């Protein structure tokens, strides 16, 4: 079913989402992928500060292509989420409520999603041009030296995604594949 939600996420929105829902996300989300995850994870372990607050936020796993003049961002589709699995349970325990990526997650991540009442969305992999148009603005807020892997703050409007793992632990990748496997 189609649903319209706001970011940062509210508990009411999260509770209403079910695996398989097609959602349109509007509001503020953050971008971080491999190198930024590693850096934030290590900073937390060393009790150093990190450049974003996780509470109620969504992290989009993405590394954009460069923006042309006058545009907010370049091509901007999701990257594979499993590379962030090592760092994700800690971030969820610190208040992160949503992740947008593509592909399977580990059991540890799925358990942390349920434990913290969070949600994992998939955006359409390889649709970077289309998704780019849903991003109204983009600002690098930290780790600029990481280039395409820097942490960004995005304003998005009706950004399309599918709920893959909901807060109850239902997993669309597992159920949908069974449905069409013959």
């Amino acid at each position, binding site marked *: 079913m189609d649903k319209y939600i706001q970011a940062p996420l509210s508990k009411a929105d999260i509770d209403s989402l079910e695996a*398989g829902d*097609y959602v349109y996300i509007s509001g503020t989300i953050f971008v971080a992928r491999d*190198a930024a995850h590693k850096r934030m994870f290590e900073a937390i372990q060393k009790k150093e500060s990190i450049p974003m607050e996780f509470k109620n936020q969504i992290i989009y796993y*993405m*590394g*954009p*292509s*460069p*923006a*042309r003049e006058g545009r907010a961002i*370049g*091509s*901007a*589709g999701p*990257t*594979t989420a*499993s590379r962030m699995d090592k760092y994700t349970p800690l971030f969820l325990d610190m208040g992160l409520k949503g992740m947008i990526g*593509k*592909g*399977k997650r580990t059991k540890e991540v799925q358990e942390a999603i349920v434990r913290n009442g969070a949600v994992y969305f*998939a955006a*359409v*992999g*390889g*649709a*970077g*041009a*289309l998704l*780019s*148009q849903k991003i109204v603005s983009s600002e690098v807020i930290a780790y600029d030296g990481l*280039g*395409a892997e820097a942490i960004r703050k995005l304003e998005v409007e009706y950004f*399309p995604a*599918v709920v*893959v793992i909901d807060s109850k632990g239902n997993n*669309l*990748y597992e*159920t*949908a*594949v*069974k*449905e*069409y*496997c*013959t």
Partner: protein
Amino acid sequence: MIREINVDNITENIKEMCIEANYYLSPDMKKALKTAVDREESKLGKQILDSLQDNLEIAESDMIPICQDTGMAVVFLEIGQDVHLVGGDLEDAVNKGVSQGYVEGYLRKSVVKDPLIRENTKDNTPAVIHYSIVPGDKIKITVAPKGFGSENMSRVFMLKPADGIEGVKEAILTAVRDAGPNACPPMVVGVGIGGTFEKCAGMAKKALTRSMEEHSPIPYVRDMEEELLEKINCLGIGPGGLGGKITALSVNINTYPTHIAGLPVAVNICCHVNRHVTREI
């Protein structure tokens, strides 16, 4: 008769080809994606496939790369043995073309200088170059930027001769099943069977550059391509891995003689953005 070709010519072509490949999907790939919509049974799967059509249109009209992972540049050079290259070093010329294409074409720089130190080279060089010497006085260049969502799901299986054709089919299905949603299905599956460890991997990569309208000229291999495509599309993975009938668009298999003791099989998976541009100079 020896024909001289200046390496600047190669640089210019490679620059243009890197850009072309990342903004315009080849007509055969576009057609395969378009016809897939009608064959998909899942509503969500159809919706994803429709989004991919829209994405290709936006990429062309607004000049936004089809995918943000504009790949590591894989370059095949088939050099005629009657060609004499002048004007500089060939490898430098190729990398100069890649650098210019990725910088001027607003493409993402995704290459790190060292696999463990991981410092970005900032111009997407170096390319991965495969050279071959062929008859004639021309150079055939294929540029195939390869994204790593699908590259990471690729596999090499060193099977035993006793595993036979059923073992090969099972290996290919295993690779695709394990890749699932990570490889951005619908996929194109490139397979190399035979040769040595590195030969089968190279064949699998080359198989991805084949036109969607072409099949293996060897009858039993062609049958295997068709059978595997059918079996893959019964795995249930579907577009985006969100369930459905269209998991792969094509299975392309290349074969080569091998050793009495071996049966190497490589499976190189590519997402639906299977980019490759070929030119002859």
